[in-house]
């Protein structure tokens, strides 16, 4: 599930859901430096970057969080971790903001750019659906953990995280061969989103290639060894 691992590396990540009645955020999962402290927090809606994103329904990229008044300085101070760059996107489900996904401290680049914003936005749309569906199944904790792993690098994600159930789940997922193959393909999602900006002809060609390959796969027996024989 480390879907965006090769696309948006971050030092730390947080995913939190909205408690609409209390008009607060619950930090459902945080991975990275000082994540344990962050998890205990509840934050009023409208507070900090995440609060603004939730209320406005629009993503935000912050290149100098240390001097940005939008950043929740009190939270940074209390947990002892002050990020420099932030990318934050809303999670929409059934046309409502249900939470916020935040990446802290871009790795591999000075700051988050518009492409990062679009890529994480695409990811967030998928994550929100999965999260809401898993709520009904009582598996939201592991799902959230998995979603966070998806949004950042494996290395940074391992820095924190004490929820043993979630860690076990994440570890189990990582060992799964199907998941490993998905990981290898995942960075292509970013490439495909770029193709959508290239023009109609390019998008049409991309659709035709992918559709053709999908049709071919469907026409064959579902045996990965045979596929490896052809393509490995």
């Amino acid at each position: 599930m480390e879907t965006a691992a090769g696309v948006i590396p971050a030092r730390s990540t947080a995913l939190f859901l909205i408690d609409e009645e209390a008009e607060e955020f619950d930090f459902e999962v945080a991975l990275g430096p000082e994540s344990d402290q962050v998890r205990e927090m509840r934050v009023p809606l409208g507070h900090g970057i995440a609060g603004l994103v939730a209320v406005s329904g629009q993503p935000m990229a912050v290149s100098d969080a240390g001097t940005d008044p939008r950043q929740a300085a009190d939270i940074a101070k209390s947990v002892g971790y002050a990020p420099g760059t932030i990318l934050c996107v809303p999670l929409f489900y059934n046309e409502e903001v249900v939470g916020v996904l935040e990446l802290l401290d871009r790795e591999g680049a000075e700051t988050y750019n518009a492409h990062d914003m679009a890529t994480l936005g695409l990811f967030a749309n998928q994550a929100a659906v999965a999260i809401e569906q898993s709520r009904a199944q009582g598996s939201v904790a592991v799902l959230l953990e998995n979603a966070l792993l998806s949004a950042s690098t494996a290395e940074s994600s391992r820095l924190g995280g004490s929820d043993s159930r979630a860690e076990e789940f994440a570890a189990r997922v990582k060992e799964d061969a199907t998941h490993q193959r998905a990981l290898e393909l995942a960075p292509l999602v970013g490439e495909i989103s770029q193709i959508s900006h290239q023009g109609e002809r390019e998008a049409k060609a991309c659709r035709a290639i992918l559709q053709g390959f999908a049709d071919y796969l469907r026409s064959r027996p579902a045996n990965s060894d045979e596929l490896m024989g052809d393509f490995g």
Partner: protein
Amino acid sequence: MDDLPAWASQFSPETLDAVLPLHGLTTEWAWGDSTGAGVKVAVIDSGIDADHPDVGGRVGGYVAVTDGPLGLQHDFEVHGDSFGHGTACAGIIRSLAPDCELYSVKVLGSRLTGRGTTFAAGLKWAVENGMDVCNIRMGTTKKNFYAGLHDLADKAYFRNTVLVTAANNMPGPSYPSLYSSVISVASHEGKDPYLFYYNPSPPVEFGAQGIEVRVAWADRGWITATGNSFAAPHISGIVARILGKHPGLTPFQMKTVLRALAANMPRQ
């Protein structure tokens, strides 16, 4: 005349108003030394802090729309800015059209519920109260607002109210930015506030400065911010300047002028 089809009487040469010719368009013709004086610009957002230096203490009017147990409420008292975003947009517009008349239409508070309703009500107030330009940083993704907002956008179009909307920063539709009657704006990376591009593949028709822009913010401060919502007020400011020099231009004429002056249009 009674046997004419509906609407046909409006096209009688005796009653038809002359329209402005649009040729040889230059920035000098379009806005010249206009400061936007006499043009009412509504900032439909989180409020405006009139005392921010970029706003200069001049806000022509206020309305704050809230949705509570008693239904929609309109409060016309002076208000501030819940977050800073409205002040940021107002500052950008003011920097381009220093003498335009800003109106703060506050539709964004700290509550999530009722956002679409308060936004629609704020836009309705602006359209029905003689605003010339509405700067719209937000929209709604909710499909049940599609028809109502479309009606409002049409009403604005027929009343010569130019709706300048920020395109959604997230993948997915947002209303009213996808309607053909609005000027939908996204960001480009340029640093010239007057540099804008025309996109011949709508729905997002114009690109303006919106990446890493230094803008006014809450508590009389400034931030450097990125987003389509910072591009839209650049176009709103330019539109206000144009209307200051050419009052009465229709929204479609405005689009034509902007298209002609876009940086990617070949010059004769």
